[in-house]
Every structure is written in structure tokens, then in C-alpha cells.
């Protein structure tokens, strides 16, 4: 019992994000928290709902910076954080909190949420019915074109051979094409943002943006991607991931006006 009390005393509140109201059905039972042990709980807080887990203070407060440098820990926690937000997002529009936002107690959480309320309301309005999507363009290495055409059948072999024949319409692909791609995406997106602090060094990566796209505009986004993927079939590959909670589009500093 004494151990139990001690452990409870050593908990902090890990914040995943904020929704405008409590959904009819709670995600809490369906997904585990960032530590892969605790529940994800909705908690009414001022006029909004904060989604939190009660996690170990040692792991998420005292050792947080050290843990962030441990790739294995960071990978597990980031995936769990994303899973929790993904579950919340299926029920309500959520403003994701920055990874690793921890409060020592409920009164601290309330105080800071209260200070950010006006900003949150603006974000809820701006981000309504929209998702974040990640778009990357990779230059296909020439090596891929001369890969050995090992094929299971004669037909497949011939098709593979045919694919190796250089095309006559080898127009130079200048950055203008990427600029045009970028402009077309901007037309279907509400906003765009830089992303790629982690994957920026991926081999062949020539373009990377996050898009905020209204759900109704998703087919338009997909048709732009398809159009360019056909145009670039042999030279570039487009990857699109999502829908993500709007990590890159929430106001970064809810209290920036009041601090420092």
C-alpha cells in the first residue's frame, strides 16, 4: 500500500490535446497512453476538455530530456502519443499538444489552459473539418532503372526490359516542376507548413510539406498528387501520409503573449 501511495504521488499529467467538448463515446478505454500503461482520460477543464494520462513523474518529468535522447524510448513514446491522438481524433476535433507537455497537478493544468483559451478557440475555428497531410517527393535514383530485370515469367521480363528503355520525352525536370506542384497543392490546402526535422536527410528527398486540407477537398488533393505522379512516373516518387491531427498547424505558443 505504501508503495502504491508513493507511486501515485509520483505521477504527473501528460497532455495529448484539447477538444471543445466531451464526445458521446470516450476513447479512454480503447487506447493506452504515452507510457503504454496508463489510460487516456478526458478531463473537463475550464470550457474545454483536456485529454491526459497519469504517468510516472520520474520518466516524464525528471528524466524526460535524457529519455528524448534515447531513440528507442522516443520511438515508442511518439508512436503511443500518435495512437492516443488518433483515437481522440476519431471522436472530436483535437488540438494536439506538443509532445512531452507535462503538468505536475490539475491546478497547474487548469491555470495554463485558462490562459490559452482564446487562442484555442481561434484554432478550433480555423482547423474545423480539416486534416494534416504529409507530402514528400523523392527523386528516383537512376540505379532503380537499371535494376536487373529478374522476373518470374517471360512476359514480366519483357515488361521489365521495356521499362529500361530511355524515353524520348526526357524533358529536363527543373525545380519549376516542383514549384508548379507546390503551387497546385497550395491551391487545395488551407495552409502549408514546413515539416521534416527528422526525415529531412532521407535519400532522394526533394520536396516535403505538410498541408492542412479541408475534408471536402481531399479528392482535389489526391487528383493533384495523381496527376504529378503520372507525369513523374519514372523519375520521381510521391509519398502522401495522413490524415494526421493538425500537429503542424496549431498555434505554436498559446501563451506567448503572456510569457517572457
Amino acid at each position, binding site marked *: 500500500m505504501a508503495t502504491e501511495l508513493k507511486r501515485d504521488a509520483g505521477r504527473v499529467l501528460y497532455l495529448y*490535446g484539447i477538444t471543445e467538448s466531451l464526445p458521446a463515446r470516450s476513447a479512454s478505454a480503447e487506447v493506452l497512453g504515452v507510457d503504454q500503461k496508463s489510460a487516456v482520460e478526458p478531463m473537463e477543464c475550464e470550457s474545454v476538455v483536456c485529454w491526459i494520462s497519469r504517468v510516472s513523474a520520474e520518466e516524464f518529468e525528471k528524466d524526460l530530456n535524457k529519455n528524448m535522447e534515447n531513440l528507442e524510448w522516443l520511438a515508442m513514446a511518439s508512436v503511443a502519443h500518435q495512437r492516443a491522438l488518433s483515437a481522440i481524433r476519431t471522436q472530436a476535433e483535437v488540438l494536439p499538444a506538443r509532445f512531452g507537455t507535462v503538468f505536475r497537478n490539475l491546478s497547474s493544468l487548469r491555470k495554463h489552459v485558462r490562459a490559452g483559451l482564446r487562442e484555442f478557440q481561434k484554432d478550433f475555428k480555423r482547423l474545423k473539418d480539416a486534416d494534416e497531410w504529409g507530402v514528400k517527393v523523392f527523386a528516383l535514383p537512376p540505379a532503380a532503372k537499371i535494376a536487373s530485370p529478374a522476373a518470374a515469367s517471360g512476359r514480366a521480363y519483357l515488361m521489365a526490359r521495356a521499362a529500361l528503355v530511355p524515353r524520348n520525352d526526357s524533358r529536363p525536370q527543373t525545380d519549376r516542376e516542383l514549384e508548379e506542384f507546390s503551387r497546385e497543392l497550395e491551391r487545395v490546402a488551407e495552409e502549408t507548413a514546413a515539416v521534416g526535422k527528422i526525415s529531412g536527410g532521407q535519400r532522394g528527398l526533394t520536396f516535403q510539406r505538410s498541408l492542412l486540407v479541408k475534408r471536402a477537398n481531399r479528392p482535389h488533393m489526391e487528383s493533384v498528387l495523381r496527376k504529378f505522379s503520372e507525369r513523374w512516373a519514372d523519375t520521381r516518387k510521391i509519398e502522401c501520409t495522413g490524415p494526421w491531427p493538425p500537429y503542424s498547424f496549431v498555434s505554436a505558443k498559446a501563451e506567448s503573449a503572456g510569457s517572457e
Partner: protein
Amino acid sequence: MSTGSGAVVFTDQSGGDQLSLVDILDHVLNQGIMIRGNLVISLAGVDLVYVGLDMILTSIETAMRHMNPPAPLAKK
């Protein structure tokens, strides 16, 4: 949903597709609301971590691509 059309690859997490670790970290660690205060622990040092992670994750990503069916990125 996962559709290969031309050279576009869609990874839609709502359809149960697997997102790569690198993409998850990219988005999860990109921004988010930063609620500040003296009792809040936020990630002041995170940008420094990114630098080292970049290289490690790129090699993990490459390894993952080699293990999974989508076309591997050719190494020099």
C-alpha cells in the same frame, strides 16, 4: 487505403496502413500547442536531439524499406 497509382504512394492511417517511424516522428515532434509556464515541462532541448536523430532514423528507414515490399531506395 493504400493505393499505388503511377509513383504516388498513399499511406492512410485511418485505413490501418502502417506509417513509418520517421513520418510519425516528423509530425508528432513538429509542433503542437506549446503551453508554457513554470510548472510545465516542455522540450527546450528537443531541437538539439533532432540533429543526431536525423542520421540514425534515415538509416533505420532505409533498413525498413529493404525489409518491406515497397521499392527499396538504392544505396550508393
